[in-house]
Structures are given as C-alpha cells and as structure tokens.
C-alpha cells in the first residue's frame, strides 16, 4: 500500500494535478464504501471505457 501511495503521489506531481488529490481521496473513501457494500457487473451494452 505504501508503494502504491508513493507512486500515486509521484503521478499527481508529474501531471501537476494537485487539485485532483482531495477529490480522489474523497472518491476513494466513498468508493471504498461501495466496494464494501456491493459487487459489480458490467452491462454488455457499452464499450468498457473503464
């Protein structure tokens, strides 16, 4: 996890998108809740853009 955080911070610095940091932290907290509460399935009607 530490490796990941180090690399992710390096990425944010490289891209100079510091404004993304608080948004991403919020998203990750919020997203973690989703992970804990449900699974997922991708509908076959869309090009998987993600």
């Amino acid at each position, binding site marked *: 996890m530490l490796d990941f955080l180090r690399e992710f911070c390096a990425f944010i610095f490289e*891209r100079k998108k510091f404004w993304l940091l608080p948004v991403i932290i919020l998203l990750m907290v919020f997203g973690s809740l989703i992970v804990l509460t449900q699974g997922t399935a991708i509908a*076959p009607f869309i090009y998987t*853009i993600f």
Partner: protein
Amino acid sequence: MKKVRILGISAYFHDSAVTLIENGEIIYASQEERFSRIKHDSNFPKQALKNLLEFNNLRLNQIDYIIFFEKPFLKFERLVETYLAFAPKGFKQFLFSMPIWLKQKLFMKKEIIDELKKFEPKFEKKKLFFSEHHLSHAASAFYPSPFKKALIFTADGVGEWATTTVGIGSQNNINILKEINFPSSLGLLYSAFTYYIGFKVNSGEYKLMGLAPYGKPKYANLIKSKLLDLKDDGSFRLNQDYFDYSTGFKMTNEKFSNLFRNPPRKPESSFKKIHMDIAASIQDVMESIVLKILESLKKEYSIENLCLAGGVALNCVVNGLIQKKKIFKNVWIQPAAGDAGGSLGAALALWYMHLKKKRIINNKDSMKGAFIGPSFSNEDIKKSLDTLMVKYIKLEKQKLIKFVAKKISKGKIVGWFQNRMEFGPRALGARSIIADPRDKSMQKKLNLKIKFRESFRPFAPSVLQDQSNKWFNLDCNSPYMLIVSDLKKDKLITIKKTKKTLSSINEIRSKVPSITHVNNSARVQTVNKSTNPLYYDLIKEFFKITKTPLLINTSFNIRGEPIVCTPEDAYRCFMGTNLDILVLENFIIEKNSQQNKIKINYKNKFSLD
C-alpha cells in the same frame, strides 16, 4: 551477444495477450482467449504466458524486462475528471466502475506482480515497465513496418485519454504529435452505431461493416451535422448530447434514437431497410473522416509512408480506400491492430525507445506473416487423436495437398490446422476453414451450417499473390486480409438490377460468388510462398484443378467462439459443425468415417457475439 528478452502484456481491458521479443525480433505472441476459450478474454493472460514460456523453453527469470501496454493511473485520472465534468450525471456508472478500480485496476502494478510471482516467486518488480496505450499501438504499427520514416495514425475506442493520435516514426524513435481525447472517439462513434444496429459492442463492428453495402448512406449528412463537429483538417468532436457512454450503460441515448426516428434494433431481430441505410451512412462518415485526416496530414508533413493501428485500422473498407486513393505511397497496417497488438507494441517501444537500440529494418516481414503463436507437432496431434479414439489417415505434405485440393474442388469444406497460430483477429491459413469460392451455395452453407452466424455476412478469399491483380483491383499485397478491394470487371457476371436485400448476397454476381459481397468487393488475403508455403501450395493445387487461384478462408471457429487453438479444439469444432474434413498437420480426418456417438451439440456452447 547476450539475448535481451522483453515480454509485452496487454490485459484487464479486452483482448489480453502476451508477446516475446528477443533483441528486437518478434519471437512469439498469442491471445489469452485462444487458450481460455472466452472471446475477448480480458483476464491476466496466464495461459498464454504459460504457453509462451513452454514454447520458447524459458523461465520467467530469463526475461529481462516486462512491459504493460498502458498506464492505469492515467486512465483513472481520465475517469475521475470525466465523472466530475458530467456530475451529477454518471453517478450510476461511477457506482459500477469504482469498485472495479478500487478492488483491482488502481493496484494494477501489484496485481501484475502477484500474477508474475506465480510463475517466478522471486520476480523482481524493477523489471516491470508501463507504456501508454496509443504509444503501444503506434509502436506496433511502426517498428515492424519496412519504413525508415513514416507517419503513424492510431485510432480506437479509448486508451488512457487519447482516442486518436498522429505521430512520426523515424528510425528507432516515435514522436506523438497530436491527439484527440476522450470522449470524442472514432472507435466509440462506430461502436455507438454497432450498439444501435443491435450488434455486440467491441465485437460486432465487423458485422456493421458487412451490413453497410446493403444500404444507402442516406443519413451521412445528418450524422455529420448533428453528431459531429468536423473540421477541415479532419479533427472532430462528438456531440455528447446524443451519446450515453460517458455517463451511462448504453452507447446511445433517447435523443439519438429520436434523431433516426427508431429505437435501437433488438439483437437477433430482423433487419429493416433503415438499419442497412444507417450502417451504410456511418461507414460513409467513417471513411470521409479518416480520409480527411490523412489528406490533411499528408499536406502538412509530406511523408510518403503511413502506418496504421488501433481497432479502427481493422475497418478493411476504410483501409481499401486509403490504398485506392493513393494519399500515401506506401501503407503498412499492424495485423493485430486491436488491444492484443498493444502487448507487441509495448515490448518494441521499450526495446527501441527506452533501451535506445538501433533499428534494423526488415524489408521482408518482421511480423512473420503473423504466424507467431503456439504450434503442435505431429506427435502431439497423434497423441490427442488416439486419446479421442479418432479414425484418421496420415499423408506426407505433397500428397496431402493434392488430396485436400481435390476434395475442396468437389465441394467439401475443410478445417485447416497447420503450423504456428496467427496473432490477431484474422485466420490467415493456419487455423482456417477453407472451401470452394465458385460454389454458389457455399456462402449460405458456411454461414448457416458451419459458422452458425447471420446469413448476410460475406466471406473472404485467399488468393495467390502472383494472381491477385488478375482477380482484384488491388495494386499492393494484402497478406493480413486488411484491405477490401473490388473484383475485376471480367470476373463479374452482370445481373439484373434489383433492390438490395439481405438475400442479395445469394445472387451470382461473379465467377467466385461465395466471396463476392453485394457491392462486388472482397476482403482479400494475398498468399505468398515464403510466408506460408503449405497454404500457397494448396491454393496452387486448387488453381491447377479449377483454374481459380483462390479459396474461401474463414476463421476456424463458430459464432462467438475464439479461433481454435489446440488439436482438441479443432476436433470439437469439426465434430460439432458440418465440416466435412479436418486436416491437422499431416493427419486427415473425414467426418463420414467417424462414429456418430461422438457428435456433440456445439452450436449453443458459446454465447452469441
């Protein structure tokens, strides 16, 4: 000199694959779907990697560098920014995609390392590199090409941010000069129509292309004026008011349906004229955008060579037009132009751009005819056949060719399994179903009784390279079946002009009706002796018997099934379909000498594509 080995990996999106290069030479490449039997398998390519190591007698620790074909953080950045830009719309998609990212994709590096550690517990993570999605495509198009310098055009659905890029390749370097970013995308535009016409996205695009000649491009202007902002240099923006893919779970929305005054066609329902006209229209728009971009680039850079990759480069009709219009003197298209080819491009990019190795240009074919996948010896095959209690005969290759060519000329349909498997979506004579193109009922028979697929879909010919210009208006080679060309006038048969319907394909419009589409075109594969000698000799023998130097060549699979990989896959497909003869290297298996009880229900084994 020590061999430097690089392993390229593409995975977790669609069409997972592995590629091995040694000192810049392409040694091996294969797709996970061929082993897992899951079409477009996106899982980590563990079975393909296992085969790669076994085939080349290697352990993972003998590989010096490993490179993944795209950058997950950059993709995550795009997702977050897209959700923010569209918020509060897109919340549902966010709810779906975030778990995938937070569970797996954001920690891709760890995921890949964990998978690699299953092959080599002491795997050193410093060996792992990441390329960019479109750089991988560009590298897969430029480095194997025979050009010192070339303009590189890549276009697909989406990578990280880029959906379309233009670069210049010179010697061992590639510079990406321009890009169009998500959500504007040629690939997504075509996929949106694929969805609307009732085909499966990222799989049915070929069908849309095949359906287009049945219609008229009545809606091309409507598409250009409402869905696109198209500039003079070919750059474009998609009007997101009509699309749902950025925020929803469909490709198009209600406004899109209202524009064409019809709801999306339900999969497997019947086709109306409007569906054919819309297919013709989007194909026409696609052609005009790509040609506009390329004409503008030619003017701007005055480079005479062009390299193409990305899923859009699999649109053979567009490729045929690029060739025909002679915008560039020479064109080279990566046969594995989709994401599987990203593994190959990433490996080559690392060798040339990161390690800065000198590029030695191979004027013959660095891709080795795309025959760079797994193979099976006669011993392997005999063992499999004996285990399956199959009745067979074994012939030496020259006798085998005579036997098979004669059978084909008498109307038999043959499953042809020889040497190393092709890399990329096309079967090129290693894992192919081959038949007589002169037979007027063959197209219908192959579609409905062998491939179990839609009756309107055309078949492609393999033609002797030295004969191709006598049969097709083609002034270049097309070894990878990536170019559509018209048949020569003297090969056509004049028919009464009637309204085009889906049954028009059954009209006899040429001397080779089974490979002639309704607009008298065909997706040609030119076969040369040096790349595929056995297949060349087979077509030559058929030529001797019939005076026709071409065969129908379609991939050895049924609808929804990945192309057969092993002798067992081939045998199962043979027994589950109406194929007459199976040829596995030197072994010949005839259907009528097999026991009926082995016959299996094959048609429903694979989900429809």
